[in-house]
């Protein structure tokens, strides 16, 4: 089947098999920043924003996402123009192997859109769908706090 997908602000016409999940359609069309982890909605490596809300793209049937706004981590910042959240993750040392980082950044972005000054509990809850098997979560929590500060300063 064919459909129009709005990815990172651009409309793309994509051909895909009707049973495919969004994760596969994104990766097969070059959006490899969306990572494939468990494919069961447990790890959060594949999290993207769908109409501004974080979802596990492995748990979204691609056809149901046609016409909706999809944002991957590349839609938030770039290598040469990183988002303050991405800077915060680097500065706080919250990145080790980096596989979970796109999902973590997306979850943090969604949190800070709603809550400019999140508590530890707010952070824990917002990132409850993102697993990191390298760093533990202390540095990640620190990165989110730093990101909140940076985002507020940038506004």
């Amino acid at each position: 089947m064919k459909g129009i997908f709005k990815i990172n602000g651009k409309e793309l016409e994509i051909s895909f098999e009707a049973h495919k999940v969004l994760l596969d359609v994104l990766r097969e069309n070059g959006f490899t920043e969306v990572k494939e982890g468990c494919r069961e909605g447990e790890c959060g490596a594949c999290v993207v924003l769908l109409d501004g809300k974080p979802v596990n793209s492995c748990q979204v049937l691609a056809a149901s996402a046609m016409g909706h706004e999809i944002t991957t981590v590349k839609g938030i910042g770039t290598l040469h123009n990183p988002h303050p959240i991405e800077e915060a993750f680097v500065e706080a040392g919250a990145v080790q192997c980096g596989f979970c980082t796109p999902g973590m950044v997306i979850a943090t972005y969604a949190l800070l859109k709603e809550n400019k000054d999140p508590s530890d509990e707010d952070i824990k809850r917002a990132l409850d769908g993102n697993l990191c098997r390298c760093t533990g979560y202390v540095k990640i929590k620190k990165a989110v706090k730093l990101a909140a500060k940076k985002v507020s300063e940038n506004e």
Partner: protein
Amino acid sequence: MGELVWYFPDSIEELKEIVQEEGVVVHGGGTGLLRGDIRRYKGLVDLGKLGFSYIKNDGEFVEIGATSTYNDLVSFFKEKNTKSILYKSLLESATTPLRNRITIGGSVAYFPPWSDIAGPLLALSSEVYLTGSREGWFKLTDYVQSKELKKGTAILKIRYEKEKDSGYSHHFRAVRNRVDHPAFTITLLMEVSDNREIQAATFYVVGSKDRFKKLTVLESQVIGKRVDDIHVESLSLDNVEFYGKVQFSPEYQRTLFEVEVKRGIYKILEMVK
């Protein structure tokens, strides 16, 4: 297996016809459907264009559109009623990205034993509005047990009397960690009068061998009693059995059930006191 066909109806009339076709199922958020190979279906119907993502709280009933997500409900009740049993249960359910995707209609249609919403909706005596081969409001308890009501129908909305969610409540999830699927859940609702008499009690366990069970033996021992006259330890429990699950053995679940039902009642009585 033929090519899976997607339908995006613009009207209820169109939906009505599509859902009655053999091999066509309704797509809510999709997380339940994805537990199997969706290529086994002939077609999937997406309800996204029909405007059933809403929660109404302005009359006698709370009415929830079928495509409202768990997080839609959490946000709604965070504003309106944090004592709601639905708020308590869904706040702890799954993870943030999954709560943004799991829909109420999908949960009711699929009704998995680990669902955090099943117990609360049963305890609230909820009703579902169907369209397709059957039209109108039906009791949730009838819907989940009837193949006939499920065949050729789509759930459009769910409702319950607002009054039923205004009392004391407790929800327990038998999990190993917070993001685990519950092996079973316990939902307790109680209405207590100003003179501390228990006027109504509705208790459910979901995830037992019976799939779900109303704890009528237990309910009958507390209804009509004064809060101060209830001795939790001496209450007898309904006979509830469990299958072994990945998380826990049947024996462990039974023990956990006995402990947690009484602990829940104790907590509610403490709230009243």
